[in-house]
């Protein structure tokens, strides 16, 4: 080489798109939810079990009880903040758990093919065919309900979707194109899968996660509604909706406030996930 003057590479500034307003709102809401979950003990005005029978079914706006009270005179706002924690822990934990195991199994199926792939696909089919609610009912009825068990059970719910997506994308990626090229460079499978295939399929997985997350919140709600989810006196969003149902006509705020939180959180997750997927793709 005869080139002697090497210009320092100019680092082109990538244009940073401003956050869309809806995404700002969504991120703000999610941040608020996480803060709620983290600092429950500081934010909550009353202990969630503190009853005050003289102020039963107080409507929202009552001084001291801004979201009203329930049928036992417990503060709805306090219980709502506590519920956000339980529901978020379950939904985040379960989503991450299912994404992790689903992706792992999908990659294993794509890497080893043959028997491993057959087993993974068979398990996924089995999972899809299983009436999940009935299975969780059985498990919870036998082992009793605990937070850990709930998270694991919910985590089992979504994995098959990730496994299928990951397997399909990894097979098509490794059959041709960039993954084959990296293999040809001498890369180990771990490098090929973690550094190349995973980032390339991440956008699809993130979309799938934003779909599973609300589903898990709703699933937990229905389990709690059936009395097998989070056990009283502890509370979750679904649990509150379930118990507030009886007072729908007389004291709708008991049920409406957790319902609104569920809707807003799932909407915020979808918006933020959509935006994240676009940001992670340098070609967009």
């Amino acid at each position, binding site marked *: 080489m005869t080139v002697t003057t090497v210009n320092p590479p100019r680092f082109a500034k990538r244009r940073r798109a401003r956050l869309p307003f809806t995404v700002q709102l969504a991120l703000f809401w999610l941040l608020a939810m996480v803060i709620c979950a983290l600092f429950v003990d500081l934010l909550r005005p009353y202990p969630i079990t503190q009853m005050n029978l003289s102020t039963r079914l107080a409507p929202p706006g009552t001084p001291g009880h801004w979201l009203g009270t329930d049928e036992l005179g417990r503060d709805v706002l306090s219980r709502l903040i506590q519920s956000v924690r339980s529901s978020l822990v379950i939904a985040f934990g379960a989503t991450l758990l299912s994404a992790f195991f689903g992706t792992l199994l999908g990659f294993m199926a794509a890497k080893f093919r043959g028997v491993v792939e057959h087993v993974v696909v068979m398990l996924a089919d089995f999972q899809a065919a299983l009436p999940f609610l009935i299975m969780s009912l059985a498990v919870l009825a036998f082992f009793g309900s605990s937070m850990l068990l709930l998270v694991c059970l919910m985590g089992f719910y979504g994995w098959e979707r990730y496994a299928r997506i990951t397997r399909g994308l990894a097979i098509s990626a490794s059959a041709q194109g960039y993954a084959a*090229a990296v293999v040809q460079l001498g890369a180990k499978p771990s490098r090929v899968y973690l550094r190349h295939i995973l980032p390339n399929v991440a956008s699809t997985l993130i979309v799938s996660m934003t779909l599973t997350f609300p589903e898990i919140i709703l699933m937990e709600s229905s389990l709690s509604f059936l009395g097998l989810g989070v056990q009283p006196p502890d509370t979750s969003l679904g649990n509150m909706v379930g118990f507030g149902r009886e007072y729908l006509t007389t004291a709708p705020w008991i049920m409406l406030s957790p319902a609104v939180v569920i809707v807003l959180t799932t909407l915020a997750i979808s918006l933020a996930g959509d935006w994240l997927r676009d940001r992670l793709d340098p070609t967009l």
Partner: protein
Amino acid sequence: MSPLLEARDLVRIYQTRRGLLGRPSNVRAVDGVSLKVRRGETLGVVGESGSGKSSLGRMLLGIDTAQGGAVYTNGKAMPVFGSPEWRSLRARIQMIYQDPLAALDRRISVAEQLREPLDIHRIGDSESRMARVHEVMLSVGLRLDQADKFPHELSGGQRQRVVIARALMTEPELLVCDEPVSALDVSIQAQVVNLLADLQHDRGLGMVFISHDLKVVRNLCDRVAVMYLGRIVEEGPADTIFSDPQHPYTQALVSSVPQPGRALKSRIILQGEPPNPGNRPPGCAFHPRCHKAEDICRHTVPETRSAGVECRAACHFAGHASLRELA
């Protein structure tokens, strides 16, 4: 000294199945191919689609295992695909792909893609790796400010330069190029071919150049092997092949390259259908399309025979003066 790359009697069979319950039938995509590549030599492999060129290339790289025969690099047998030995051999044998956009990871910047072979083979520290990236980028004609670009932000020719640069990072001895210019514009083809020729000349690379483009092969290659239905029908020095082809198939191919000052009438137009590897004609596989076929071609598979200096051809009439007069 043993040749850089040697293949002996390579066979690759694909199983195909017609319909849901059809009986599987075997397609011999590559059928007994032997070839040698010496250091600093460029071997062109030409043939039409389906002649087994790419299958041959994958076997030479050890990506597909040969079902018969063996590949030797520097006299040693090719390790099993995916084994640590195979992986470390990648530092010495590299490949250049047909579609550069597909061969590059679109989420990773050019500099990182180029650094990857060094990361994989643990060559140098991070500073010397970056220095090497810049050096190779300049030597393939990329600008340094393109280091932070992503593949989709580059033009086709620049992408192919990135692919070539990545293949050169570990200073390999052998490059296998599978149709490296057929996806590019003609103007860019010339740039890339010149680049390959320069690199080959400067670094003494051995190169296997798989292409259906005879013009390119003629410019670039020292020796040429012509494939038809999975077999090499003629092999020899590029000049001899193009000036005095022996096999009728090669003659037809060579005559199809337009040349200024030559009337188009002298082209040999091949008759019949393109070959189907699943249904190989008996005798000489080329006889249904050959304008010189005689009875012997329909029954007897022609031996590969010497036809001139360093030349061999698989035709019953190769080396006969009468054939040349006919042509």
